[in-house]
């Protein structure tokens, strides 16, 4: 297993190297000279230009620039953004990535918690009306033109009902007197959620020792509620509660959009995967043993059928950037996707290349995790 991981890691380094090469030459091919672009930029003071050119390796032949670029990436030096001068690219990505990641992971979780049981159910009821209705709805959500869905959501929930904000990351007017930066609040929010999940998992482990199911459930629920109460109380006491609420309020609509789209995909995948599994002999055996339908479906079939769904989730991490571009633009959510789009259009080469490089690293890691997960989850596969 370890040898397998090491081998894949070595392969990945080579592929990543090729990826960087392609990225570099793509941006070289873009109109507007990469090396001259920032010279006319009024945001960059003249005396800083020389130092910047030195740092990005913009002098010399293309070959020299290329070597310089590769060296910079491997030493973690992604350069300085032209548009947001003098902010470091790293700094910008570190600010924007959590926003995209939170959106993506929450949406995936929501989509999964609905798509998994529903896909399981409609596969079991194959050929009935419910199956057709759910499949067609799933395909519709999966193939809907993302901007159209965004317009509809904005129209219904922001414009007509007025429940949610029509875009942006926060309400600027509300934040003028804020004691801390939005980024701090946002990171604290992430930390709270992660802490709650950790608390819930610990509570789960601890209460598992209680033998009787009823007190066990009661204890788990009490502990969970206590955790949530502590978190809410903590936010209330810190006085930052309204600010956190403002961010969450802005997050609902983009979240809903991503969740609906990925719900369609998850449900359809689960259905197909389940249809393949129910043909296996061991399902027939389980039925022949006289096990109840629900047990065969949930314990025997669904667990195996989950495998491709988990893998596809890992592989869809590449979607973070691609899928993020449209959704984030529609809702003006300043995440990685919107940053990438703006950087490319305004020829902010270091930032655009940084976003792509970073996505490349993420996707490669995801592929590796997918392979390993597959080996762990499926006993038939061994490396």
């Amino acid at each position, binding site marked *: 297993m370890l040898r397998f991981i090491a081998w894949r890691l070595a392969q990945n380094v080579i592929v990543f190297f090729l990826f960087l090469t392609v990225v570099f030459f793509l941006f070289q091919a873009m109109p507007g000279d990469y090396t001259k672009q920032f010279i006319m930029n009024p945001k960059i003071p003249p005396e800083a230009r020389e130092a910047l050119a030195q740092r990005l390796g913009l002098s010399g032949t293309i070959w020299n620039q290329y070597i310089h670029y590769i060296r910079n990436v491997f030493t973690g030096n992604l350069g300085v953004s032209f548009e947001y001068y003098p902010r470091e690219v790293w700094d910008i990505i570190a600010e924007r990535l959590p926003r995209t990641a939170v959106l993506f992971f929450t949406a995936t979780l929501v989509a999964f918690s609905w798509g998994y049981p529903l896909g399981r159910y409609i596969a079991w009821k194959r050929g009935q009306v419910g199956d057709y209705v759910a499949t067609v709805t799933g395909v519709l959500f999966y193939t809907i033109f993302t*901007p159209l869905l965004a*317009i509809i959501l904005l129209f219904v929930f922001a414009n007509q009902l007025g429940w949610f904000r029509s875009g942006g990351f926060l309400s600027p007017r509300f934040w003028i007197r804020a004691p801390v930066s939005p980024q701090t609040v946002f990171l604290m929010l992430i930390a709270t959620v992660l802490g709650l999940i950790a608390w819930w998992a610990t509570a789960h482990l601890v209460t598992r020792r209680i033998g009787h199911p009823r007190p066990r459930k009661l204890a788990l629920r009490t502990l969970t509620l206590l955790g949530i109460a502590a978190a809410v109380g903590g936010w209330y006491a810190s006085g930052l509660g309204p600010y956190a609420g403002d961010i969450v309020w802005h997050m609902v609509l983009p979240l809903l959009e991503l969740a609906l789209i990925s719900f369609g995909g998850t449900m359809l995948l689960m259905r197909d995967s389940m249809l393949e599994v129910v043909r296996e002999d061991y399902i027939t055996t389980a039925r022949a043993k006289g096990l109840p339908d629900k047990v065969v479906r949930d314990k025997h079939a669904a667990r195996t059928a989950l495998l491709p769904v988990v893998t596809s989730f890992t592989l869809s991490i590449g979607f973070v950037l691609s899928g993020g571009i449209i959704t984030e633009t529609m809702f003006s959510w300043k995440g990685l996707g919107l940053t990438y789009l703006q950087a490319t259009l305004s020829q902010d080469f270091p930032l655009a290349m940084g976003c792509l490089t970073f996505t490349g690293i993420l996707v490669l890691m995801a592929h590796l995790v997918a392979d390993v997960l597959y080996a762990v989850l499926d006993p038939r596969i061994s490396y």
Partner: protein
Amino acid sequence: MMDRTTYKFEPLWKIRLRLFARSFRKNWGLFWESRIGPLGLFIILGFALFMAAHPILMSTIWDPKVYDPIMGFDPKLVGQHPAPPSWAHPLGTDPIGRDILSQLMWSTRSEFALGITAAVITVTIGTLIGSVCAYFGGLIDMFFMRLADLVMLFPFFALLIVMQSIIPMDLFKLALIMGGLGGFGAITIVLKSQALTVKVKPYIEAAKVAGGGAFHIIRNHIIPNILPISFLYMMFNVTSAIFSEAALSFFGLLDIRMSWGIMLNTAQDAGYLGAFGYYWWLWAPPGAAITLLCFAFYLVGRGLDEIVNPRLRKR
């Protein structure tokens, strides 16, 4: 013993035709039974009729000066554009006075052309590389598989955004680029694994023993057997090509005069998307058209999946 003098051999093409008709009838039955496949097919046929109606309308009841999708303008409604739906303009007019329905019908043709061109290119490349990789293996196989890994590493839409700034793209170039990029990506891996299952079949061995060369075997034995899967992936590729074109046009990144994405872009640029409900005819028809066509091709793909993938079949 057969009497050779009276028995007349049927010509080969007739036998082939009969076999084809038989398998077509059987598969059509399976496709029909999937129910979602025919639904998609009907929507696509509907769009085809919609497309065909445009030139007829233009030459009969629509005045080209008013109803031309790109240059048209309705002088009777000056100052009222974008005008809401009326008898003269069933879906209203856009901010510069062009008829929305006419634009919608006219663009259908380019969407079909783009989607199908891109998908055919993708599938042709994927099928060729997949079967060659499966048949020869070794170095060629490794090269193309790593290439596929590399292509899959790029976020597709993000890559297209960079590409459009390098090459100003019209519809045809976009189709070529999307088709090419797609062809070297994930589809080669899928089709190669299909071709591998064909390669180990006894009839390939027989063909080799009979003296068939590599080219002959790939062309006559491997490719025909993976074509159904290729065709299935073609449907999914049409969906993604139409979607990508619409999204790029919507952001105003393409050098195209008219398409459904451009219609949305016009509404957005003129600032009418912010007012949502009041100007619904500016965004609802093109958005719905893009969604419906993508939806239809995807449904056909899923319908075909039930024929091609034996594990999904009901019986």
